[in-house]
């Protein structure tokens, strides 16, 4: 009898708190988005699962000695997991389209206005009672506008670890929502004629250019923004492994097994920050709202910049590809392609949109570095 009573006292049912139940539902919601809606499942599935695990009463997943505790402190608090992911992403990225048409970097730059405008917005939200964002918090939230998961997690783990869960949820959810968020903005800001613009074919990019490019990017980052070198450096290492052609087995591993293993644990570890006291408050609502704003502003500023460049450039530039500057590789580029096809069924913008798309990755890593340097 006593044993059964002990057993009862050790059950979840006898120990649940309301917040834990709600957070488990949030975790289930993330699983639903991942599995049924295919929203960035590679991260949202382990993250949703981690959210469930961390909120189990008694089990202590995120307390000292718990699995998620080890994962979080070994991999996320140190920044190691997002950096390994970034290395893998670098090894998967082909900068050919960007090197062929370097002006596209300005589109990647313009789209970062989403980040800095959101920073301003986050500070403005302090006027709402119950919300109190410091500059560090605001910076970590604003990076959602960078539409780059590992960058957001890396920056949030440095500047505002207690907001990490909400920021990661927002970042990945909006990245998955890119095909829904972007098209109306793109259509609103462009005329049908602009959307029909066909672009000149890209020139051939040589092997040596692709090898020197990541080194040049790293060098410039070292010179002007050392605080961005962890992100940019690991990204460039992955890209150099890819393009050098001499370490294919390392490049393949970085793109596959290593990034897969890290993704599982990164997701679990981020999920472990989805505890009720960190998530169930009005600040999370603010973060989710600001994330949507950030994406929208980033998209709009990319498109407007492309419109402007189309005016001043001798080669025609379809303004739609400006939207790809938010990164969210390769989804945003595909969206640009799709919206372009609607206006002109013979207009394949995908390759042209890859330029601003990868420029956006660089742009948001640079923006993260600036925020680290100035408020970190």
């Amino acid at each position, binding site marked *: 009898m006593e044993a059964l009573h002990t057993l009862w006292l050790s059950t979840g049912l006898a120990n649940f708190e309301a917040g834990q139940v709600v957070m488990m539902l949030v975790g289930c919601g993330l699983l639903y988005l991942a599995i049924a809606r295919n929203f960035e499942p590679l991260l949202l599935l382990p993250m949703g699962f981690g959210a469930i695990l961390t909120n189990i009463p008694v089990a202590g997943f995120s307390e000292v000695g718990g699995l998620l505790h080890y994962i979080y402190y070994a991999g996320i608090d140190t920044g190691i997991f997002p950096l390994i992911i970034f290395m893998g992403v670098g090894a998967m990225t082909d900068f050919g389209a*960007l*090197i062929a048409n*370097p*002006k596209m*970097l*300005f589109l*990647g*730059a*313009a789209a*970062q*206005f989403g*980040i*800095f*405008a959101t*920073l*301003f917005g*986050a*500070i*403005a939200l*302090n*006027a709402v009672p119950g919300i109190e964002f410091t*500059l560090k918090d*605001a*910076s970590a939230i604003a990076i959602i506008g960078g539409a780059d998961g590992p960058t957001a997690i890396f920056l949030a783990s440095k500047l505002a670890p207690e907001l990490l869960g909400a920021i990661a949820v927002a970042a990945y959810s909006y990245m998955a929502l890119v095909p829904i968020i972007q098209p109306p903005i793109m259509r609103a800001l462009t005329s049908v004629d602009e959307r029909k613009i066909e672009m000149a074919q890209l020139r*051939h*990019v*040589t*092997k*040596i*250019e692709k090898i*020197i*490019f990541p080194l*040049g*990017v790293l060098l*410039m980052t070292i010179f*002007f*923004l050392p605080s961005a070198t962890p992100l940019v450096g690991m990204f460039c290492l992955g890209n150099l492994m890819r393009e050098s052609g001499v370490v294919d087995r390392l490049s393949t591993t970085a793109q596959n097994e290593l990034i897969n293993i890290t993704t599982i644990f990164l997701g679990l570890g981020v999920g472990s920050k989805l505890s009720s006291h960190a998530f169930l408050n009005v600040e999370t609502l603010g973060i989710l709202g600001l994330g949507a704003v950030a994406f929208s502003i980033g998209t709009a500023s990319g498109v407007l910049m492309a419109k402007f460049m189309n005016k001043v450039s001798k080669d025609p530039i379809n303004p739609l590809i400006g939207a790809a500057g938010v990164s969210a590789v390769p989804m945003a580029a595909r969206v640009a392609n799709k919206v372009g096809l609607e206006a002109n069924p013979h207009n394949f913008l995908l390759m042209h949109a890859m330029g601003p798309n990868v*420029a956006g990755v*660089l*742009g948001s890593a*640079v*923006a993260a570095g*600036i*925020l680290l340097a*100035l*408020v970190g």
Partner: protein
Amino acid sequence: MEHLNELFIEAGTLMLAGMVFVFAFLGLLVIFINAVLAKLAIRYPDAKPQTKSPRAAKASTNSAGSVSPSVVAAISSAVSQYRSKHN
């Protein structure tokens, strides 16, 4: 409110400095690509392309390791030819 104003000014400065820096940085990268890479491309053109004919390449397995439908069809046709001859 005092405090909030200060934060606003800081945030505004950040926004300005940040955007200036991002444009400057990526602009420099444009210059780097135009000035350095484009010249490298001319001076060290790629070695002659791989000899694999495009047709053969198209027919071979694709990068993900899966086999394209036409190859599957060809193989299955070859298999049935082979079987009809050997059975």
